[in-house]
């Protein structure tokens, strides 16, 4: 499903974020990317969504070389990915419902169908009762769940989550992880980055450990 082959990423200015990274993730797998901040976790996720491009090596998603995609093809790649951003990227000029609606509007879903899907997504993350609220009125954990709802509303095959439990206390973090487990159980491919080892202890899932841009 996702395949990195000797990927090298250097940012303008010379900072080397990833050095010679290779790995494969099969369909339906749930994988954690761990490491300290600055280890290259975010860069790794950004390369999959073609938000950044590798300097050398290849990034394959669904056997498509993402690094070589033309600008016009990018939107269609991204529609197959559900991305949960580290900084949430919620829109505060509209309510919870409309935030989740955005991906469906972009894909051109019709009105009635998208209403159902939005409510289903909000139900999964437990925010159905807050659909009229403005995201600014939500707690940190709720904002994170809203971000997850927006990422899954399009029913993507792959979910990417960048530090989804970043600033949350342990109880909230466990809640979020439980939501991800439930997606894993229904067949989604998940790639989750975290610096917080504590959420992983009991889950015997695969880990990719990054240290200063090198895969351990």
């Amino acid at each position: 499903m996702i395949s990195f082959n000797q990927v090298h990423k250097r940012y303008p200015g010379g900072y080397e974020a990833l050095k010679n990274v290779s790995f494969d993730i099969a369909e339906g797998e749930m994988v954690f990317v761990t490491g300290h901040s600055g280890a290259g976790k975010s860069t790794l996720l950004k390369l999959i969504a073609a938000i950044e491009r590798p300097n050398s090596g290849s990034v394959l998603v669904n056997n498509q070389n993402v690094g070589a995609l033309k600008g016009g093809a990018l939107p269609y790649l991204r529609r197959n990915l559900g991305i949960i951003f580290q900084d949430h990227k919620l829109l505060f000029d509209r309510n919870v419902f409309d935030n989740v609606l955005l991906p469906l509007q972009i894909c051109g879903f019709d009105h009635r169908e998208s209403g159902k899907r939005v409510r289903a997504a909000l139900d999964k993350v437990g925010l159905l009762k807050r659909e009229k609220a403005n995201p600014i009125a939500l707690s940190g954990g709720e904002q994170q769940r809203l971000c997850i709802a927006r990422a899954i509303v399009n029913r993507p095959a792959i979910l990417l989550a960048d530090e989804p439990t970043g600033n949350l206390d342990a109880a909230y973090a466990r809640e979020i992880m439980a939501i991800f487990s439930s997606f894993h159980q229904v067949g989604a491919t998940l790639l989750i980055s975290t610096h917080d080892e504590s959420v992983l202890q009991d889950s015997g899932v695969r880990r990719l450990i990054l240290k200063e841009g090198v895969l351990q």
Partner: protein
Amino acid sequence: MTRAFALHLGVLRTVLRRMFASKLAGFLNILVIGIALSLPAGMYLLLQNAQGLVAQLSDAPQISLFLEMNAKAEDVDRLHQQLAQHPAVAGVGFVARAQALEQLKQSTGLSDLISGLEQNPLPDAFVVHPKPGDAQSLDRLRGELAKLPGVKEAQLDSAWAYKLEALLKFGRMGVLILASLLSLALIAVTFNTIRLQILTQHDEIEVAKLIGATDGFIRRPFLYFGATQGLLGGIMAWFIVTVSLLLLNGQLGALAQLYASQFTLHPLSFGDSLSLLLFSVYLGWLGAWLSVARHLSQIGPR
């Protein structure tokens, strides 16, 4: 088909909501566009009216030949034949001096004054209808006829109409220049409005790009906004021109009455009104397109 239509309708609804959300600013923009467009449109309309008047007057140019006061009947007959046989003359009519006086009495209402005259001050006259030709050939004919024996004076009635025509050409060029400049202004106004909108919606554009929006999807509301603003500005311009015309016509009616005439300005024709609206829609669209092309690529990611 219906789904695509619903999609576009949805975009239009969003755009209108945005426009009405910024009541005063939106209205001021539309007013600026309306005024900018109404100037050339109004001048064009005045020219159209003047041209209609000129066309009426210069349609059939004629040369009036005034004879000497003491012209004898046989001289007049000889001249009549000469004129009728002239190759550049299509037709000729004779106006006897008594007949001319009678006409003058009837048409001007100066009968009391004219009755008081000791003798008829008017000479015999011929009205010559030349064959169609340009201003120069008509003027040459006039010169030729003026030299005929017994003719005191020859007047080309349409000479001033030709001069007016030349003046109108000058005016049309002026309108063209004004319209071009104000069109640029309109594009600039839209460009700037859209630039501000893109700035305020920076976050939304970025998120939309990140979750798979095509450039077309992001561009569409801005283009619709530009076109809609152009349309409303065009409608505003139409109202400004039409209301001004009604006001002018009110005054013009009183003025024309003093000259015993019934001249009124015609409003913009249906075709011209449509052109005005389409043109303003196009300019709004163009301004938005330029702005989006310029600013959208600056918002990451690519």
